């Protein structure tokens, strides 16, 4: 199996050096389609494909994976159990204090999973704001933050299947998650549910730009820089990016706009970013 034990960053030597010597990098993943998951015996997914490309360029041919629950991705990284986290984790200011994010690789939109026919007619965040609908959100996800800020009633579920169950059983009126995940979820089930169109949520008049990225240990600056360098080549070439990501259902909508950096997202001033990049929701 491709699942391996242990990161390469033990001791004093740099992680970059270590993985280059070994020819193997060990990435943690959460088994969530379409980001990073096992397909039979093969580790695959959009962020994995990206990793293979980038690490390959760094002279590391093998990308191995350690499957971990969402909540232990970061603790395992800090504990040197693996080298990076490849799960498209959102770049958030609080998180930046504990771990180092690479530059954005995927732009996030939001969507709702709703009962077939979308009885409540949900389209964007404004359609739930101020309503008395109950929205299911996954524990610690950005949508949870949106709901808190806008006073939307939520229940917290463990993972996307639980979110599906919450909608099917009527415990929640909708399940909010990233557009990509909701689309994948709706496709993978026979239950009478559907995905709404993805949107960029606007909270307090500010477009909630969100992006996911590879995560590194704080100390692994050298590896992070090397990774970013290779990533810049892909991010600078939309065709190349789509070539890698499209097979997993990603579209141009998820392509990170030029100029958007992890540092900006870590700052957390979304209004400033919108202005600077001239984005509009």
């Amino acid at each position: 199996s491709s699942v391996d034990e242990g990161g390469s960053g033990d001791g004093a030597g740099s992680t970059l050096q270590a993985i280059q010597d070994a020819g193997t990098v060990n990435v943690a993943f959460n088994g969530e389609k379409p980001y990073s998951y096992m397909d039979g015996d093969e580790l695959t997914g959009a962020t994995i494909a990206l990793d293979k490309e980038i690490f390959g360029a760094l002279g590391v041919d093998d990308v191995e994976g350690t499957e971990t629950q969402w909540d232990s991705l970061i603790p395992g990284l800090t504990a040197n159990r693996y080298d990076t986290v490849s799960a498209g984790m959102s770049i958030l200011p609080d998180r930046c204090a504990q771990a180092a994010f690479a530059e954005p690789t995927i732009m996030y939109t939001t969507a709702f999973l709703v009962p077939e026919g979308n009885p409540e007619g949900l389209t964007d965040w404004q359609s739930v704001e101020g309503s008395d609908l109950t929205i299911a959100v996954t524990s610690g996800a950005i949508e949870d933050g949106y709901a808190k800020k806008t006073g939307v009633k939520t229940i917290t579920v463990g993972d996307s299947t639980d979110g599906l169950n919450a909608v099917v059983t009527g415990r929640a009126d909708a399940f909010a998650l990233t557009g990509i995940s909701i689309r994948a979820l709706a496709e993978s089930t026979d239950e009478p549910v559907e995905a709404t169109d993805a949107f960029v949520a606007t909270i307090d008049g500010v477009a909630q730009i969100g992006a996911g990225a590879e995560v590194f240990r704080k100390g692994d600056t050298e590896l992070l820089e090397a990774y970013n360098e290779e990533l810049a080549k892909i991010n600078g070439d939309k065709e190349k990016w789509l070539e890698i990501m499209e097979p997993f259902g990603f579209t141009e909508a998820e392509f990170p706009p030029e100029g958007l950096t992890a540092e900006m997202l870590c700052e957390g001033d979304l209004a400033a970013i919108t202005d600077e990049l001239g984005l509009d929701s």
Partner: protein
Amino acid sequence: MSDDLQALVDRLPSLGDAVLVTLEMTLGGAVLAMVVALVLGFGARTRSLWVRGPSRVVIEFFRGTSLVVQIFWIFYVLPQFGFKMEALAVAIVALGLNYGAYAAEVVRGSIESVPTAQWEAATALNLGWFHKVRRVVFPQAWALMIPQLANLLIQLLKGSALAFYITLHDVFWWIDNLQRDTRDTFFSYGVGLVIYFVIAYVLTWGMNWAEERAKRRLGRGTRPRLRDVFGLKPGVPTEIARVKGGVA
């Protein structure tokens, strides 16, 4: 449903490995727990405060903080202090320490339920402490302990489902994956229920057999009938109410 079955069949080959991991954790954890229980159980009833005190602290600590938190610390925090173990080892150590602390109370209680007169008779024959314990007291306490240890073993088995939290591919991980594949919680958890039940049942048989054997050694009980061994016999026999320290 037929999709579900297809997914189940596809995943069956990997079930063997998953069960193996669960069994390794359960049995490894149980063996370690027994060692821990013996050390702490006897430690907690010595007269010397220097032994009893630390034993009690360790027991209360591992019973008092929960298993998840212990696993978290051993797997994710200790490495940051340069103390790193393999995931399976971590699972076994955590399960062993946690359930060992519970089992220590069972051991202590059972040892205390062996009549003092037995210790005294052994002293009157001038047997040394270790010899008294090994040959006289423990074999009698053992028969009292088994039913409660059997309960703990089932709890330990269920506790091992936390292994996925530390990247192990055990039965629970397998079920979780089945659930993601099928998106059918009922189906996949139902399958999981059956798997855990079967493992628990087999473990219970083993413990029933051990109990009958221990009782026979004491000349109590009869030769175990098949029904005694294979029946889903309730864990706790009459004598247990006398045993202090109970399961928890």
